[in-house]
């Protein structure tokens, strides 16, 4: 049987598509350390010039919000439409605003 303590840890991979863009999650790789994680990320996720920069971090280090809390966390924004510019009616003649 497989022994989980002997499996190489999991790392999350983030790729910057090109200069000026932020890093974006691409997938994950198994690796024993950060250096190997970068090498595996490069081979697995950037075979076609998909990136100019990579981030890897141990999956166990990611802190995520609980999907069950999505309501209390995100719904309060729903009734605050006045945070969007389209909420305000400006007469046609007024420009540059």
């Amino acid at each position, binding site marked *: *049987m*497989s*022994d*989980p303590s*002997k*499996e*190489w840890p*999991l790392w999350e991979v983030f790729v910057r598509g090109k200069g000026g863009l932020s890093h974006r999650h691409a*997938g*994950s*790789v*198994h690796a*024993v*350390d950060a250096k*190997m994680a970068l090498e595996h990320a490069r*081979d*697995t996720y950037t*075979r*076609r010039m998909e990136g100019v920069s990579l981030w890897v971090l141990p999956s166990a280090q990611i802190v*995520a919000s*609980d*999907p069950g809390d999505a309501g209390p966390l995100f719904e309060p924004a729903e009734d605050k439409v006045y945070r969007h510019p389209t909420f305000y009616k400006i007469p046609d003649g007024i420009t540059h605003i």
Partner: protein
Amino acid sequence: MYTTDMSGNKKAEVVAEDPEELAAFEARVANDEFIEPKDWMPEAYRKTLVRQMSQHAHSEIVGMLPEGNWISRAPNLRRKAILLAKVQDEGGHGLYLYAAAETLGTSRDEMTEALLSGKAKYSTIFNYPTLTWADIGAIGWLVDGAAIMNQVPLQRTSYGPYARAMVRICKEESFHQRQGYEIMMHLAVGTPEQKRMAQDALNRWWWPSLMMFGPPDEKSPNTAQSMRWRIKRDTNDELRQKFVDITVPQAEAIGLTVPDDKLKWNEERGAYDFGEVDWEEFAAVVRGEGPVAKERLQARQKAWDDGAWVREAARVHAEKRANAKVAAE
């Protein structure tokens, strides 16, 4: 490449679950929402996905073997570089899919063990041998072509990580199909011997390619459930028909003949009628009686065993260095 939904012979068992949560889940899926790893999901959905995704991943990995067989014998440097890139892609596809499947709580090693013990299946197509260079053309054109047909709808499959892996895979798969067709195209206008070789490869790969879509709809009891859960988006027979309709003109265009004497354009249906797939052969290959099934698994087992000391050494070395760093601080 692609896996066939081969375990379609037994129904997924139903476990008692909170009816409220189940209803909410079903509603989300019916509404074409994506399910993410930490979301609540029925056990049968999780199981079906792990099975389908890991089989798909295994197929990519085992799929490297028949083509890898020809890397050292590719006819020129261009073909060799292309084949190397393609085989590397297949490895990559396997890794995207394993990573996506791991988000469901099954570890990579568990999946590998299931493959090596024969518990998990992979696509039957890879249990056929690659006898000539033309087989590499036929695999790219037909096998990857069938795979694309199967995979394109999976980009909208309900499980987010699976769908995202499929988007990436589909982007890369098109190169595979085109390079295969190009090989066939060149052989078809080559010497009579080369043309015969291309036709022979088409003859041998045509029917196994049609089998890649899985058993006929009436013998695929899981299809209804999987479609309801948006794990599958089209039935086996629909996709098979689509593949035949698209591929036959491609064969004709390069002067090759599809090996099916029942093949005939049906004006009324606006589709090709075609002969019956040999489901006995399919069943036999699923049972592990494919011509090179044993060799394939032996090759995987050998790779796993030969790599054991590397995996262990790398792990221990990293551990040692991490400890030394802690000690130095």
